[in-house]
C-alpha cells in the first residue's frame, strides 16, 4: 500500500498521549525520527502577514503576503509567499491562475532595479543615478514647456496650455498616487493626458 503518513497522523494512529514512551516500546522510534526529518518545516513560521489586493483585474481579490522581515519595524522584508485572503468578501480566499502566481511577479527576473538612460542613437541602456536622471527630466520638461506653452489663443483668451509633452497615467497605481500625479500634470498645464481605461 503506497500511503504516506504525516507526522501528525502517525502520532494519532499510534496513540499520541503516550507517544513518547509507547513509540519506543513498539520499536517505531527510528522510523518516526526519520520521517520527521523528511518533512519540510512549515514555511510560514515567523513570517509577517500583510494584507493587500491583487494588482491584476478589477475584482480586486484580497491577498495575504507573508514576508521574512517586517517593514513596520524598519526591517528589510522579503516576501516568501502570497495566498488568497479567506476573510475577503469577494474572493473568499480563492485566486485565479494569475493571482495564484503573484509571488513570481514580485520576484520576476525582469523587475527593474535601477534608473537607466538610452542616449540618442544608442543601442543600449546605461545606468544613471536617480539624481542625474530626474534633473535631466525636469530640464527637458522645462525647456519644452518654456518653448511651447500657450498662454493665450489667437482670440486672446487665456488658455494656459502645454500640448507638446504628454503624460500617460497607469491603471494600477493607487488613488493617492493618481491624485499626486493629477496635481503635477495639471499644474504644468498639460492637456495630452490619458490613462489606460480604454485598453
Amino acid at each position: 500500500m503506497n500511503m504516506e503518513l504525516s507526522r501528525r497522523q502517525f502520532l494519532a494512529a499510534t496513540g499520541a498521549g503516550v507517544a513518547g514512551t509507547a513509540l519506543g516500546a513498539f520499536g517505531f522510534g527510528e522510523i518516526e525520527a526519520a520521517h520527521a526529518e523528511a518533512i519540510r518545516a512549515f514555511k510560514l513560521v515567523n513570517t509577517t502577514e500583510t494584507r493587500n489586493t491583487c494588482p491584476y483585474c478589477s475584482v480586486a481579490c484580497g491577498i495575504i503576503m507573508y514576508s521574512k522581515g517586517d517593514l513596520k519595524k524598519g526591517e528589510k522584508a522579503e516576501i516568501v509567499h502570497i495566498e488568497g485572503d479567506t476573510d475577503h468578501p469577494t474572493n473568499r480566499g480563492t485566486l485565479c491562475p494569475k493571482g495564484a502566481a503573484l509571488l513570481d511577479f514580485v520576484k520576476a527576473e525582469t523587475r527593474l532595479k535601477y534608473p537607466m538612460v538610452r542616449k540618442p542613437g544608442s543601442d543600449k541602456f546605461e545606468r544613471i543615478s536617480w539624481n542625474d536622471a530626474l534633473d535631466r527630466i525636469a530640464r527637458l520638461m522645462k525647456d519644452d514647456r518654456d518653448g511651447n506653452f500657450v498662454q493665450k489663443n489667437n482670440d486672446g483668451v487665456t488658455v494656459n496650455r502645454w500640448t507638446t509633452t504628454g503624460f500617460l497615467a497607469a491603471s494600477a497605481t493607487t488613488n493617492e498616487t493618481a491624485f499626486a500625479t493629477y496635481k503635477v500634470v495639471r499644474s504644468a498645464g498639460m492637456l495630452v493626458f490619458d490613462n489606460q481605461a480604454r485598453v
Partner: protein
Amino acid sequence: MTNSWTDIRNTDLVVIMGGNAAEAHPCGFKWVTEAKANRGAKLIVVDPRFTRSASVADVYAPIRQGSDIAFLLGVMNYCIQNGKVQWDYVKAFTNAAFIVKDGFEYKDGLFTGYDETKRDYDKSSWDYVIGDDGYAVVDDTLTHPRCVWNMLKAHVSVYTPEMVERICGTPKEKFLKVAEMISECSTPTKTMTSMYALGWTQHSKGSQNIRSMAMLQLVLGNIGVRGGGMNALRGHSNIQGLTDVGLMSNLLPGYMTLPTEKEVDFDSYMATRGFKPLRPNQMSYWQNYRKFFVSFLKSMWGPAATPENHFAYDWLPKLDVPGYDVLRAFELMNQGKMTGYICQGFNPLLAAPNRTKLTASLSKLKFLVTMDPLDTETSRFWENHGEFNDVDPSQIQTEVYQLPSTCFAEDEGSLTNSGRWLQWHWPGGTAPGEAKTDNWIMAQIYTRLRDLYRKEGGAFPDPIVNLDWSYADPGEPTAEELAKELNGKALAPVMDPTDPTKVVVEAGKLVPSFAALRDDGSTTSGCWIYSGCFNENGNNMARRDTSDPDETGAYSKWAFSWPVNRRILYNRASADLNGKAWDPSRKLIEWDGQKWSGYDVPDIAPTAKPQDVGPFIMNAEGVSRLFVRGMMRDGPFPAHYEPFESPVTNLIAPKVRGNPAARVFKGDFAQFAEPASQEFPYAATSYRLTEHFHYWTKHVWVNAVLQPEFFVEISEELAKEKGIVKGGWVRVWSKRGSIKAKVVVTKRIKPLICDGKPVHVVGIPLHWGFTGAAKKGFGPNSLTPFVGDANIETPEYKAFLVNIEPIAGPVA
C-alpha cells in the same frame, strides 16, 4: 458597476455579452456560480467565441463581433412588441413620456444635423420640447407620437429577429430564446444583471453598445435593484480609480470637466453647468457643481486660490479640441508636434493600435520617460529584436529614461474595484534595487521643476510654483496625506445652511462627506465623490468588517464604496412610486412615511417624498434617459453601425461606413480595408486568456510556462478552406501590419452566416511581446486600425479585417 461583485448572487439571469468573466475575472465569476447554485439563476452568453463563460451557460448565442447594437435593439423590439415592459418603472423612472422637439429624426442611418465634412452633428434638434413654465413637456399617457417611448418604439422596429440574424449571424431561434429569457425579467420580481467588459467598449460605437443594454435594463426595470444593474467588469485593478480621479485629457476629478477655450472665465464655465431641474421637485444634484469645483481648486492651489482670482480658474489649461486622448497623442507625435512623453505604468507600444505608427511616432520624440516595475516594450521601442521589433537604433534619436518603480507588494494606498469599493492595501516587501514609489518619483519631478521655475522664471510659472504641496516630506507625500486630501477638509468653520449659528465641521477637520463642501473657498476636496473615504472616523477604506445583515451581499462595513459608502447606485429605484420594494424578497431601501432607510445608503435625500422626487438625482430630469438628448456625439438613440473594417456592408444604412461621428485622422482612413473586402476577407478580434494579464504576466514564470507562446485561433472550416493544419504556422496580415503565429484550430469558433454569406472569425490573444519570460511574439495591435469610439476614443480592437495563409514554421 452600478452594483458589486457580491451582489451578483441576488440575480435571476446573468447576461455576459461583451466580456468573458469566467476567464478574465475568474474569482468574480464565482458570484454567477453562486446565483446559479443557490437561486436557480440562468446564464446567457453572447459571444463570437464559445468561451469558458459560454461553456457553463444555459444558453449560448454566437454573434458577429461589432453587431451588438442590432442584437440588443432587437431584444428591445421583442420586449416592446410582446408587452414585456415593466410599465410602472418605465412610466415613473424614465423619460419615456418626454416630448421630443420637432425636427429631430432618424433616416438612412443618420440623425438630424449631420455634417459629413466635419463627421459631426448639429445636435440642436436632439432635445425635449420645453414648456412656458421652463420644464420639459411630458405626456404621461404615452400617446403623443413624439414622446420618447413612441420614438423609441419606431426606432427599434427595424431590428426584427430576421434582421438580427442577417446582421449578427445569430440563428433566429437562438436569438428568440435569448430575447424570451431576457423579456421575462420585465416582471418586478425577476431581475437580470449585465456583465460586460472590453468586448463592448473596444468598438467605434462602444459607448452606444453599453447604452443599448442600459436602456434595455431600464425597460425591464432592472436598474437600482439587487441583482440588477449595468456591471462593467473593468480590466485593470485601479482603472476605475484613475478615471474617478480624472486622469484623462478632458476630466477633472469626480467626473467634472476641464474648461474649453470657449469658457473664457469662471462664470461662463459655470453657466453651462447650472443643471437647472427639467421637471418640478427634482434634485438635479449637479446643482452642487460649484461646491465641488471650488473645493477641488482649493485642493490644487490652497491659499493662492482666492475669490478674487476665481479660485485660480485661469490656471487650469483650456481645451481647443474635445480631448488629447492616447490616439491623438500618437497622431501629434507622428506629425512631429510633440517633444516629450511620460508613461507611468503604461506600455502603449503594445496597448495602442497600429504598432507601425506607434514606433514611428515614438521615434520622433526628443525624450521618453517610462516608470514601471517591469521591463516594458515601450521603454525599449528603439532596440532591435529581429522581426519582433525590427528597428535600427542608430536612426532613432529619442532620449529614453527607464525609471524603476515599486509594485503593489511594496506600495501603500487604495485601489477602486469595479464595484466602486476603495480598498486600502499595505506594503509587505522591500523594493528591489533602487526602485522607488510612484509618489516619490512624481514628487521628485515636480519639486525639481518647481525649483527651476523659482530660480529661472519661465513660461507662466504661477500654477506650478503655487501648487499646494504642503506635505510633511515634499519629496515623498504619504498615501495617508493624499487620501485625506482626496477626502477634503474645512479651512474655516462650515456652517449649517439651515441654521447659520450651527457649526457642521470645525476648521481644520476632515469633512465627513461631500455634503459639507462649500463654494466659498472654505473647504477643500481633491475628488468630491471620494469624500468620506478618510474622515474624522479614520481610514474607512481600510475597514475589514465582514458583517452582512440578512446576507444581502452589501458588506457595508467592508472598505468604502463611493459615493458615501453607497453599494448600489440609483437604489431608490428598487422601490415603487410609493416607496415600497418592487420585490419584497429583494428589499433595498424603503420609505416609511417619514424617511428612506434599509440595507444601503439611500440614493436620494432621506426625506424626499417618493411621489415627488425621481430616483435619478444626477439627471436634471430626475428620471433616466431612454433618449439622451445631445449628450452623445453619435446619436440620442443607439443605431447599428458596422465596424470601420467590416466583412459586410451596413444592411440598415448601406451608404454609412463605420460610425459616422467617429473621429478619423487624415491618413488613417486610407489604411482601412474596404467593407466586404476581397483582400482582407476575415473578421478578426482580440481577447485575453485566463492564464495571462495583459503584458505583465509574460514576465511571471508560472504564467509564462502555462501559456508560453503566441497563437491565433480559427475554425475547422477556415483551416480546411485555407489548407491550414492544427499546430502549424500562419501569417496573419491587415492593411497595417503582419504577424506570424502558431495556429489553434478549434471548435470554439464557428463561421457565422450573415445575410446568407459565411463570415470567418480569426481570434488573436494579446499577451506577447519581446520582453519577459515567455517566448517572443506579436500582439493584435500590429494589425488593428487607428480609430476609436465616437464618444470616448476607445480603439476598435474587437472588430477588424485580416487575411491569413499557412507558412513554414521557424527552424527549431
